[in-house]
Each structure stands twice: as C-alpha cells, then as structure tokens.
C-alpha cells in the first residue's frame, strides 16, 4: 500500500469523510461504486413486486399509499444512481449491467408476491430490515452517500408505517385475512433472515475496513430480530423457525440460513429473478423513445 493510500485509510478509519471530488484509492472507489450501485438497483427492482399490486390494492387509500411508496423507491434509485455517476460510472452503464445480469440487487426482490399479505409484510418487515442497514450508512465515510441516506431513511419510515397498518388491518379482519399475513410471513422469513448477509466478522469485512459500512452483518440482523420479532409475536403470528429464541444475554438464536442459497438467489437464480430482469429489460426498451425524444428536444 502506498503512502497516499495509507493516509487515506487512516483518515477514513478515524472518522474522516470523503467528498466527491477528493482523491480516493481505486479499491475504495471500486468497492463504494459497486455497493451504491447495488443499493440503487435494489430500489429500482424493489418497486416491481409492489407494482404488481397497484391494480389489485383493496381500497383507493391503499392504492394511493402504495403508489406513493413506489414513487419514493424510484426516487431513491434516481438519487443513488447520481451518486454512482459522480463516482465515475454512467447511469446508462448501470442500467445495461442490471439487465445483463452483471450487477446485483437485494435478495428480497428476487421473490414473487402471492397475496396482499405479502405487500404488508414487505412494506413492514423488508423495509424495517432495510432501514437498519440504511441507518448504519448515515455514518458512511463517503459523505455524499451518507447525506442522501438521511432523506432515504426519512421516507422509508413512512413505508414501515404503511406496512404495519396493512398488517394490523389484516390481523384484525376475518380469519381468511389473518391467514394471508401468516402465509406471507412463512414465505418471507427465510429471505428476511438472509437479508443482512452472512455473519462475516466486522474485522474481516473489507466494507467495514474502508468504513463504507460501519455495522457488521450479524449486528444488523440481531437489531432486526430484537426490534421486530416481539412485534410479530404480540399479534399472535408465528415465525417458521423453531430455534428462534432470545437468549438471556439478549442475543437471538436462529436456524442458520443457507448462505449458498443466498448467493444463488442474488446471482439471478431466485424464484422471480428472470421474470423481474426480463420486465426491466422490456420497460427499458419500451420507454427508450421517451428519453430519445426528451434529450433531442433539450439539445
């Protein structure tokens, strides 16, 4: 490692911040770009499972709230791709790589949604899991990313409210409605437990080393379990893991997820991966004339 890189590393490790125009080592730029791009892809792909439910939302109020959530997520993707662009990768290249399967997006967006219960569980628990990671990113050494995360976290908090409201309505409704939530929870628990990634110790995590991330994967998962399992249980719902239990030390025990399966899912082999990527490809082709027209007019 050269002196300049060593100084940079010492700077970020001691809490120093980096701005867009600052010099940064290639490794830092590469890791950061890949990370933010994956985040942007996830926001963009994350709207697809919910989009399926706009036309099937049970009331006008829910339809509007869901549409607003989708607008938020699409907006987050825009803001995050801007960060990536300033790091040197054009947005077009990101969108090309996404449909070519060369870049990744979060595991939870590789799964199908089967009922309105899934919509509630996604907005409540997937967004809750996401906000835990995103709050930790407020301390990211790359300041433009950390700043945009403040706006994103603020908007995510509305989604959790919306999701919890949907779930509460269903569990206080008919037996059939309650069943929808329970089934959705059973389906989503495995992907939720995988969401924060394998329990790699913070000291071995290169993302923590460069202070792009400041939280270990397992720490995030424990925070999620501590915050949300009791909230699920108090509604009389169950979670499909017999080992799930809070230890006397406050650490949650659970069945170890299959990390190879997680790798396979995020590499494009999840149950809905192909369909989602195909849809993205289709909509990109369908709206191509819009961007061409707009750019031609502006020129």
């Amino acid at each position, binding site marked *: 490692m050269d002196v300049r890189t060593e100084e940079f590393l010492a700077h970020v490790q001691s809490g120093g911040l980096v701005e867009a*125009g600052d010099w940064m080592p290639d490794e830092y730029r590469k890791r950061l770009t890949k990370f933010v791009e994956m985040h942007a892809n996830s926001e963009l792909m994350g709207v697809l499972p919910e989009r399926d439910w706009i036309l099937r939302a049970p009331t006008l109020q829910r339809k509007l709230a869901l549409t607003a959530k989708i*607008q938020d997520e699409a*907006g987050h993707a*825009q*803001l995050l*791709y*801007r960060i990536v*662009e*300033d790091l040197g990768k054009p*947005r077009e290249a990101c969108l090309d790589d996404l449909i070519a399967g060369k870049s990744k997006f979060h595991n939870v967006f590789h799964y199908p949604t089967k009922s309105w219960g899934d919509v509630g569980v996604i907005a409540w628990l997937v967004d809750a899991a996401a906000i835990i990671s995103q709050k930790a990113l407020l301390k990211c050494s790359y300041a433009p990313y950390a*700043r*945009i995360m403040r*706006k994103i976290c*603020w*908007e995510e908090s509305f989604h959790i409210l919306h999701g919890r409201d949907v779930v509460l309505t269903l569990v206080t409704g008919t037996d059939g409605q309650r069943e929808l939530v329970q089934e959705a929870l059973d389906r989503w628990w495995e992907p939720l437990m995988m969401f924060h990634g394998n329990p790699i110790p913070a000291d071995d995590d290169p993302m923590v080393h460069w202070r792009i991330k400041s939280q270990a994967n397992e720490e995030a998962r424990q925070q999620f379990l501590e915050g949300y399992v009791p909230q699920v249980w108090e509604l009389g719902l169950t979670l499909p893991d017999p080992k799930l239990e809070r230890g006397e030390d406050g650490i949650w025990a659970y069945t170890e997820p299959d990390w190879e399966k997680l790798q396979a899912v995020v590499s494009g082999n999840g149950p809905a991966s192909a369909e989602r990527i195909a849809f993205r490809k289709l909509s990109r082709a369908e709206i191509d004339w819009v961007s061409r027209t*707009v*750019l031609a*007019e*502006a020129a």
Partner: protein
Amino acid sequence: MSVFEVFRRERAGAPMQHAGSIAAPDARFAEVYAREQYGRRGESEALWLVPRESIDEIAEFVDEFDLKYRRVDGYSIKERLKEARQRAGTLEG
C-alpha cells in the same frame, strides 16, 4: 443530460442548504424532478436549482501568513487572566 445541484430551505429563516443533485435533460425537467424529490412532502419551503457547471469552486484558501489574530486560537487568555486576578486579589480557591 445535465447535472443540477439542488438547495433547499427547510423552514422559514433557515439557511439554504445543499440537498443533493439531479440529472435532467434541461431546466424544465430539472424543476419537475426537484419538486418531486425535495418538495412533495412539504419538507422544503424554498428550492434553488443551480446548473453544476455554473458553480465556481474555490480550490484553496490557506492562511499563508498564519494570521492567528483572526481566529479563536490566536487569543489564549487563561494564564494572563489568572495572573491579573492574582494581582487584583480576586483569585478564588
């Protein structure tokens, strides 16, 4: 596409602060995007859009002559205040 920097005032009396940037084909689109990104929940009471290329960044502003009297650290009064109090007989404890 051009990049526009967005500044927002959160509430009356607050300073304009950098909010983020947006990419847009022209100023009209930039206005729509800025409104949607930073105004739709009533979180801003004023928005400014600035084309990135019109920003002049001043690269260096070093205090070449170390003009300490312009800074707080140019005034270390603690020791002398103590001495003055001693002479005046007002030093406590």
